[in-house]
């Protein structure tokens, strides 16, 4: 067995070393040209002061009040939508996990399908349901609840969190379920036979064991909310100043600044935030696996 493996390796070693990596070439080419090259251009452009000079003036503008406010709003939206959808999704995943396998596979399929909905149609669906003329709003009015009189509007941060939940809760169910699959039934049995209560089990076993995976899933939701663009633009039309929307209107030329490369600086800022989130995601994933 060892011999055949060795001879096979030697046989393939007969090719010249350049010829050997040919299957990686097409991938590397499109990755370099359609991904690395544009990213490099944003970086370069964000530092470009014109006439061959480079400097940080675009970044200085980025750190002024209106743009910092946009970053704060984006972070707020990402945080609260990730937390809301994360907690609800985790609870649903927990109850589904302990159900029959039929329900489990149905829910897995539904989550996979719903987690993929998004974009403009989703925003329109919620306008039809929760807009001032929407079916749900009129239905609630009939039973005496007027959500719009209590200050709710769909075209706000709260509204966006509601709409994002529609794909983020299923996404949470999808990414958190594998962690639940790793739970051993014996742990609960051990807890019970040692006289531990359900509450104690939850506090001392369930939460500590699942926390890293929960954190990782939340960070993934955070990243997805942070870079979402289509739904937010269709729903708010720009009335909620999120960073992607600001960049969008800079590209479209709806907003004019003296700083032509402000959009590039904001784009780099977004990449930075998202990279930090992904680094933490990597750490919590490793933490979750280490257990």
């Amino acid at each position, binding site marked *: 067995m060892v011999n055949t493996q060795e001879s*096979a390796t030697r046989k393939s070693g007969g090719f010249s070393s350049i010829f050997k990596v040919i299957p*990686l070439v*097409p*991938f590397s080419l499109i990755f370099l040209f359609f991904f690395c090259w544009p990213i490099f251009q944003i970086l370069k452009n964000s530092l470009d002061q014109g006439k061959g000079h480079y400097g940080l003036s675009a970044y200085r503008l980025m750190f002024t009040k209106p743009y910092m406010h946009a970053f704060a709003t984006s972070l707020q939206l990402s945080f609260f939508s990730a937390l809301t959808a994360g907690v609800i999704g985790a609870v*649903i995943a927990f109850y589904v996990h302990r159900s029959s396998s039929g329900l489990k596979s149905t829910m897995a399929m539904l989550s996979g399908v719903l987690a993929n909905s998004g974009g403009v149609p989703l925003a329109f669906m919620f306008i039809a349901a929760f807009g001032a003329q929407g079916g749900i709003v009129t239905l609630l009015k009939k039973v005496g609840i007027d959500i719009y009189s209590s200050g709710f509007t769909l075209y706000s941060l709260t509204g966006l969190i509601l709409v994002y939940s529609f794909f983020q809760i299923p996404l949470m169910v999808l990414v958190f379920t594998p962690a639940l699959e790793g739970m051993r039934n014996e742990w609960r049995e051990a807890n019970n036979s040692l006289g531990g209560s359900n509450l104690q089990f939850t506090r001392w076993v369930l939460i500590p064991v699942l926390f890293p995976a929960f954190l990782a899933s939340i960070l993934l939701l955070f990243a997805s909310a942070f870079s979402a663009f289509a739904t937010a633009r269709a729903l708010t039309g720009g009335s909620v100043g999120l960073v992607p929307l600001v960049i969008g209107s800079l590209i479209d030329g709806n907003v004019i600044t003296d700083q032509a490369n402000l959009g590039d600086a904001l784009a780099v800022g977004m990449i930075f935030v998202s990279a930090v989130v*992904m680094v933490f995601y990597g750490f919590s994933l490793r933490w979750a696996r280490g257990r």
Partner: protein
Amino acid sequence: MKSRIFSATRYLILGLGLIFFIFPVAAAIEFSLRSYGNKGHTFANYSWIFQQEDFFTNITISLKLAVLSAVITLITVVPAVTFLHLEGQRYKRIFEFLAILPLVVPVVSLAIGAQKAMPTFIQNSQYELAFFYVIIAIPYTFQSLNVGLTSIPLKTLVEASRSLGASFGKTVTAVIVPAIRSAINAAIFLAVTLSFGEFTLTSLLHWETFPVWITRVSQGNVLGSIALSMFSLIGAWSLLILVQSLQNVQKQRRAKSQVEEIEEVLT
């Protein structure tokens, strides 16, 4: 007693979840059947969709781009991942890392870079979109192929084929491709759904595809726009459900045949 409380809570929670997902859909469908001036419910808004002359044009463009990005995925991502599993083990970690990166860069940022970096002859062709769709899809396509290939003893199969005297081409067409076909299908499916629904990059680069067209045509007709949205959402959901059930059937069949194989070996 305890388990009864548990199952009661479970049904309560699942019920609430179901309400949260069904109500908006039902309300939006009801809305899409309304008519202007409150003249009862009709299908007029749906027939309006098909009367739009751009409807088929834009569906065709989106389909073309989806097919093209599937083809590009097939000739770039598939060979790369297969190679990493066969002989390129030492490059595996670095390519796995690279494949995550498009997830780190928000699509809005990629769009602004694409506008700056692409030469004009590429920017003038709508087919540039397909290449960017492939990039955006890489974290998913690469990962799904990567996971799919781990469960296949590809290296052993290739060694067997070579030691039986098969040529390189024969090994690819008769051994590798059939062995990884379902992993390829899953990756292609991901690439297609992602391309078909992509809006952010497409609209920021000022191209019109089906999702962008929906937004534009919606501006003049509120009821029509809701009908169009429900049409495309329900269309996408049905397609996803169909494909997932097909995959499940395939998986069960494969599991069964594996059991049969094991039984054969044992008897």
